[in-house]
């Protein structure tokens, strides 16, 4: 039995260094002679900067320089802008704010940068920052998504008529309205998809160093792709050649989407290191993470589902407002619109859809990618609607889903957004999940809870999302004369086990011993110069697809060499289990590798060397579609409003599974984040002051291990038909399925009280209050 191939639970190679404190994170890196940076942020949500007085701060011993927006403007440091544009129905692009790295004129959220202090020590830099006086004229602020477009809302961008960034719509509204007008049933839900702060364990940090001889700047920072960071800085912002921008990230303590961005601090570190000709070090703290890492979600939605008398979906309607924060960050309005809409309708046959998103500016931290980026929002809309549809039609929540799944004979199924879904066995997955969760035994468990004075509920979150992300990925497989291989790939690991899993693919395909395969992550753009990094659960399909392509090239070359060694035609050479054979003879991969580096043993015209490169490219509508059925079972204490998740079960289709232990780990992590959103994570801005009042772990409840249930995660794999390995993503399944599963379970528990709606996070106070209101309206 092959213990290291595809599908084996190979133990993580990286765990040894992570668990023994031997990882190399940005803050572990230091350069002799480095100076230290402190970034001063605005404490005001919205204001005009009249002046910034740095005179006292300059006097602090050890201060090297204090930069403000005047310095960056004098040096013509370009502003940051989002990569992408979203058009409205008239074809006009979204409003694109220009975000200065340091603000000279105006601040727009608490956390906006106003000064950069550089000193011999980090303490001196912080001391000096406390003596910088920012004279600010306060402006009224708006922080509430639903109020951003109110007539009296203060407008953030003076050359934009309102706080509307773009009003995106995808379909003919009138046609869908007509379906609704004639529908026997219309389910409607209104809810908030709550704003989240990802909180990677590692705060942001940076180490920048300029080499005047080579005119190259090196930046170390925690990111999700070195090439993306280098190209953003070099190409999009600074307009310098790529070979002048060197980006290195060895170990990174969590990505979640928020580490994929080029933040203003990164740009300022690169700029200032060159300006001062001094290596610069910055380590942010948790408060920096809370107020300045991009946030996620934050939408308010009114959604409707039109159904026929059998409970079959006729049409769907989603009218949402999505908060961008003060600026559009790298992806900005693309996430709720172009990305989120693709899988709207998820696993169900939805014949018609009207979808409208108003992206709005507020005086809050910019909102951008957060594990799932648009797809969890779509899943949440769909699953809340299914539950409401079950209620108004009187159908069982299981039955109504069964009636509406995309049927097996409909694949490939093109949804209303023209996304071709290749495969899925949704009803089988539902049945497996129901069995694994012992859905049938719920009644007994509910009685047991009731005997203890508790309410019990069970709920389904059925998810389907689009994985794949950036459309190209690069890999290189180099085979040395000793028969060992080195695999390079342009995706990036910030914890997802690439060192373990990618060599499994090469081992499976090439038959080279697992221990003889080295893996080079794209941690340095001067070593791995191409690659799009990590986003949208893309590594398995895109990185895996690229490795597959490079391995196929290596096998082809190996066949040509083997044919020469065996004196056979290349077309006759067969390759299996690391052995090339033709006629009666055979040669091992190691023998072929040795010959490949020996000019005397190669066919005429073949250069020595064995180094294959492949760029894997997917077409723009070729995603993969991870899907799954998650079932949460909760107990609610009606006296206190405390919700505990008693059981949690999931059955997921993640396509061909490369390493089941790693897939389960991804699912567990995603479920934890999803339950965090559903139950605990409350990002609160204070109206009026615009302060982020949940900006510490004392107030922001990232779920603790003891707050989470044991997760029973199973799998039903349906290989994806449109990528070479048959893989589907797994990184975001949990954040898609867990929130609706938990909310539907709580609604089920509160159903006897007449409760039909509750928003996330379902905090103790909110649940208690919902119960009180239900009791009051019943009596």
């Amino acid at each position: 039995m092959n213990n290291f191939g595809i599908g084996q639970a190979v133990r993580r190679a990286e765990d040894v260094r992570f668990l023994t404190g031997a990882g190399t994170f940005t803050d572990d890196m230091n350069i002799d002679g480095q100076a230290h940076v402190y970034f001063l942020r605005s404490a005001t949500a919205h204001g005009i900067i009249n002046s910034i007085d740095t005179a006292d701060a300059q006097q602090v011993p050890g201060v090297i320089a204090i930069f403000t927006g005047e310095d960056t403007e004098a040096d013509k440091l370009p502003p940051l802008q989002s990569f992408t544009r979203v058009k409205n129905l008239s074809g006009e692009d979204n409003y694109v704010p220009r975000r200065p790295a340091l603000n000279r004129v105006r601040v727009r959220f608490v956390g906006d940068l106003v000064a950069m202090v550089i000193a011999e020590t980090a303490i001196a830099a912080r001391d000096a920052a406390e003596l910088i006086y920012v004279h600010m004229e306060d402006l009224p602020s708006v922080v509430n998504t639903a109020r951003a477009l109110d007539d009296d809302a203060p407008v953030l961008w003076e050359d934009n008529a309102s706080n509307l960034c773009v009003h995106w719509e995808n379909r003919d509204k009138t046609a869908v309205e007509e379906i609704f007008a004639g529908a026997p049933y219309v389910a409607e839900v209104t809810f908030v998809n709550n704003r989240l702060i990802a909180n990677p364990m590692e705060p942001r940090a940076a180490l920048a160093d300029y080499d005047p001889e080579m005119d190259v700047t090196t930046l170390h920072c925690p990111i999700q792709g070195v090439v993306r960071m280098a190209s953003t800085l070099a190409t999009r912002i600074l307009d310098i050649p790529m070979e002048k921008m060197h980006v290195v990230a060895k170990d990174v303590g969590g990505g979640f989407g928020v580490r994929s961005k080029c933040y203003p601090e990164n740009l300022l570190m690169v700029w200032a290191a060159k300006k001062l000709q001094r290596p610069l070090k910055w380590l942010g703290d948790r408060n920096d993470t809370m107020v300045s890492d991009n946030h996620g979600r934050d939408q308010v939605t009114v959604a409707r589902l039109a159904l026929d008398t059998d409970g079959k979906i006729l049409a769907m309607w989603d009218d949402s407002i999505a908060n961008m924060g003060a600026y559009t960050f790298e992806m900005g309005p693309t996430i709720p619109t172009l990305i989120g809409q693709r899988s709207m309708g998820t696993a169900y046959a939805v014949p018609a859809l009207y979808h409208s998103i108003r992206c709005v500016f507020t005086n809050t931290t910019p909102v951008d990618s957060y594990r799932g980026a648009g797809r969890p929002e779509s899943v949440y809309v769909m699953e809340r609607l299914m539950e409401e549809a079950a209620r108004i039609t009187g159908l069982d929540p299981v039955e109504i889903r069964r009636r509406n799944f995309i049927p097996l004979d409909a694949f490939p199924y093109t949804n209303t957004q023209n996304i071709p879904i290749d495969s899925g066995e949704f009803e089988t997955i539902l049945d497996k999940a129901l069995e694994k969760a012992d859905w049938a035994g719920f009644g007994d468990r509910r009685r047991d809870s009731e005997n203890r004075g508790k309410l019990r509920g069970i709920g389904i979150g059925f998810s389907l999302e689009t994985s794949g992300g950036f459309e190209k990925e690069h890999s290189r497989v180099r085979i040395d004369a000793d028969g060992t291989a080195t695999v390079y790939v342009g995706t990036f690991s910030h914890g997802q086990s690439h060192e373990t899993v990618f060599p499994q693919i090469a081992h499976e395909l090439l038959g080279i011993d697992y221990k003889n395969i080295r893996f080079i992550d794209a941690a340095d753009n001067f070593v791995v110069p191409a690659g799009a990094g990590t986003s949208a659960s893309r590594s398995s399909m895109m990185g895996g697809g690229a490795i597959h392509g490079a391995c196929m090239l290596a096998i082809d070359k190996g066949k040509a060499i083997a044919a020469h060694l065996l004196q056979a035609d290349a077309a006759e050479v067969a390759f299996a289990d690391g052995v090339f054979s033709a006629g009666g003879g055979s040669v091992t991969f190691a023998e072929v590798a040795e010959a490949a580096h020996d000019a005397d043993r190669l066919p005429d015209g073949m250069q020595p060397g064995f180094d294959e490169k492949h760029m894997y490219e997917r077409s723009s509508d070729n995603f993969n579609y991870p899907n799954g059925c998650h079932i949460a079972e909760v107990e609610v204490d009606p006296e206190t409003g405390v919700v505990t998740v008693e059981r949690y079960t999931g059955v997921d289709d993640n396509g061909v599974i490369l390493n089941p232990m790693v897939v389960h780990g991804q699912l567990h992590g995603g479920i934890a984040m999803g339950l965090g959103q559903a139950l605990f994570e409350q990002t609160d801005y204070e109206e009026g002051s615009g302060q982020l009042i949940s900006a510490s772990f004392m107030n922001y409840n990232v779920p603790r291990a003891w707050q989470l249930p044991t997760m029973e995660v199973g799998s039903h794999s349906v290989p994806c038909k449109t990528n070479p390995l048959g893989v589907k993503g797994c990184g975001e399944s949990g954040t898609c399925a867990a929130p609706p599963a938990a909310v539907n379970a709580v609604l089920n528990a509160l159903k006897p009280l007449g409760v039909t709606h509750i928003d996330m996070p379902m905090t103790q106070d909110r649940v208690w209050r919902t119960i009180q209101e239900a009791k009051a309206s019943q009596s």
Partner: protein
Amino acid sequence: MYDFDYQRPTSKEAAIEAHKASDDGMFLAGGQTMIPVLKQRLAMPSLVVDLGAIGDLAGIERSGDTIQIGAMTTHAAVAASDVVKDAIPALAVLAGVIGDPHVRNRGTIGGSVVNNDPAADYPAGLLGLGATVVTDRRQIAADDFFLGMFETALEEGELVTRIDFPVPEKAGYLKFENPASGYAIVGVMASTGPAGTRVAVTGAGPGVFRVEAMEQVLSQSFTADALDGITVPADGLNNDIHAAADYRAHLIGVIARRAVEAATGA
């Protein structure tokens, strides 16, 4: 953290002297609040006097019907103490639900009491059990010790050395936690014994307080059912993103009832 001088004396006397000689000194016990406060630059002492090397400030003893706990005794030590578990199991429960294992292994009873965080557990423990705070110069009843938020009756440079708890007949402690911080949204110590019948609430208001209406009915009948119909007004209670004042008022009723149930084994 701002710069400060640091001393680690080995006797109470030396610690008090060092503090007296400083402009703006602070005693450091377990540091579970004070170190984060210093790190966030919310305090700027000229001198920190670390009490960690003074051996005779820690320890638990029973003296007749009193449990004496040295000020530098950690929460973990109180939670694990057979003396405490035998005499006042509710106090061991209280110590065992403070913070997390790291906090319990470093944090001390003296440090917690002196800090008087309005959501800390020990203030409810002392007030709800009728304890006495012993200092280098006097004894202060818990009823007189806890003043406003983060304020106590201690004078400048006064050092808490010990807390004395009378052994109650019955006592129960229950904490309803803020799930983010682990501090009490409402924590209730209910007891009856030589210190009278007491219901002390932490977390709900600007400081620990007793609920007279509950104490009255419980002094007649120390049972959970005796609390039926007793409500606490929301006026003056804390109101934050985790719990509005009306919710806290409601929770005081629920948690008090459960604390009495714990005390009576119901």
